[in-house]
């Protein structure tokens, strides 16, 4: 086995270029996904007991929860935007020997996102 001589990157390499920073932010949107999974677990766990669920419901109006939701929403929207931007690279569609325009796939996925979001909000609020 040969050993490569690699110079370790400085810890702040991702702060040195906007593109690197955007990449790191994109990867760190996973923390928002993680945090929201914990909230769902809390909701499922507390739903067995009306008192425990009441504590969760009250917490959602707490300023700590509101600030966390602002941060999570920003990261979630960035995740959605970057994920949709990648769809034409993952799904290459062909129509009559012609490649379907990447912009068309991005547009279709964006419309799908809006329909799903509207449906979820409608289902909860109706």
């Amino acid at each position, binding site marked *: *086995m040969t050993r490569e001589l690699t110079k*370790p*990157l400085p*810890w702040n390499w*991702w702060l040195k270029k906007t593109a690197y920073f955007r990449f*790191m932010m994109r*990867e*760190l949107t*996973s*923390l*928002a*996904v*993680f945090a*929201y*999974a*914990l*909230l*769902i*677990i809390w*909701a*499922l*766990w507390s*739903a*067995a007991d*009306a008192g425990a*669920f*009441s504590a969760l*419901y009250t917490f*959602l*109006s707490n300023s700590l*929860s*509101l600030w966390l*939701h*602002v941060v*999570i*929403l920003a990261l*979630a*929207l960035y*995740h*959605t935007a970057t*994920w*949709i931007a990648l769809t034409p690279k*993952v799904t290459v569609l062909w129509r009559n020997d012609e490649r379907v325009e990447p912009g068309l796939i991005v547009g279709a996925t964006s419309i*799908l*996102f809006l329909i*799903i*979001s*509207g449906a*979820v*909000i409608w289902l*909860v*609020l109706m």
Partner: protein
Amino acid sequence: MSSSPDRSAPLFWLLFAGGGTASAMLLPALVFVTGVAVPAGWVSENDLLSLVRNPATQFVLVGLVFLFLFHWAHRFRYALVDLGLGLIGKRAWLFYGTALVGTIVAGLAALRL
């Protein structure tokens, strides 16, 4: 050193992609519900409780916890490696184990209802 291919890698990548798609499509709307609709009083405590207690909702929520956690595990552990924290990031079991435990806890919570 023999390097046999890691046969679990495609599975974790698939879960990463599935969780990435599920969260990209659903997370902003869910955050709107718990971060705007609930504090604004558009959804009452009773309505939210009966929604969470609905078996169909529970099934979806446990599925989302499973996908969200495995998406996080895969992406976050490689982000740590990129940040120079490879000693933590390379301990795969720590992340996939956390995701598995979280999924089991969510599943048990749903069964308890």
